[in-house]
């Protein structure tokens, strides 16, 4: 038994929530990829010990 009838509004909101979820997921993947490229590209290399001395 349905505890409530589904309104057109619920479908619209569901679509919007899925959309926002996908966008956030995409953003997380993008930041992950950026971090990987930056770290492997040497942007954040620590100075060598002999250079410090």
């Amino acid at each position, binding site marked *: 038994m349905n*505890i*409530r009838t589904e*309104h057109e*509004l*619920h479908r*619209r*909101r569901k*679509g*919007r929530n899925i*959309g*926002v979820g996908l966008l956030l997921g995409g953003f997380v993947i*993008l930041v992950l*990829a*950026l971090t*990987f*490229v*930056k770290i492997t*590209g040497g942007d954040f290399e620590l100075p060598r010990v002999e250079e410090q001395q």
Partner: protein
Amino acid sequence: MVDIGVETTVHEHDAGLSDYFALMKPRVMQLVVFTAVVGLLAAPVNVHPIIAIASILFVAIGAGASGALNMWWDADIDAVMKRTAKRPIPSGTVTAEEAKILGFALAGMSIMMLALSANFLAAGLLAFTIFFYIIIYSAWLKRTTPQNIVIGGAAGAFPPVIGWVIATGSLSFEPWLMFALIFVWTPPHFWALALFMKADYHDAGVPMLTVTHGRTSTRKHIFVYTVVLALVAVGTAFTSIGGLLYLAASVPLNILFLKGAYEIWCRSEAQSEADDYKTEKKFFKLSLWYLFLHFGAILAGALMPIAWFGWS
């Protein structure tokens, strides 16, 4: 029996994702992305594809934020003008408050992320572009001076400069040529639109040149700016971002554009009324192709330079 039904408040303004996307002016975003990509690829520095894609995406989000903030600020004008009456705020699908929050949030996010993905100079330029578009153009110039479109055009001219800075991390002469191309192109493009949108700007109280100086003066202004534009556009061919391919595209395009501007100048209001602004509409459409093909030629020249007696 216990009623466990969930109470749902039905809001009149319950926007879908596409309504928020429309708030970001997707057509302007396309132009921003295209010119920024050209600026990035024309630069003499290779960028990692992931960094390039991410940075261009953040520039696009910054442009979208500007669009949302512009729609929030200009909601009153948009509601009056026929061309903009169907935008999300005047049509009632998104509230002005939502547009403001979305705009500020996306602006902050895009600037910070561009600083992380590219560099601080690119992020600073993006921040300045958003500031210029919202504060200098939308909030100040648009409602006070007929030069609104002339100075405000700078906001739309920054993306290729940002693209170049994403790649190089510094500024040089070449990106400012791309800036100049869009900057001088903007007035004739919008004045042509103002000619055939007739009463729109007048009804909204926006002091466009057509409203303050009359339509005959606007026609003359279009021609003068088109002459300056032709000099800038063809002159760019003889710089390092130009070349043979660019020159081959630029010369015929500028001849066509000058011809269109001259025809607009020579026409009377009665002639335009008679054929429903056919020449003005044609010139406006051509202006879109004009900019697209010039930047396309810069891009093509950067990707496959053709050498000719040492000139490429």
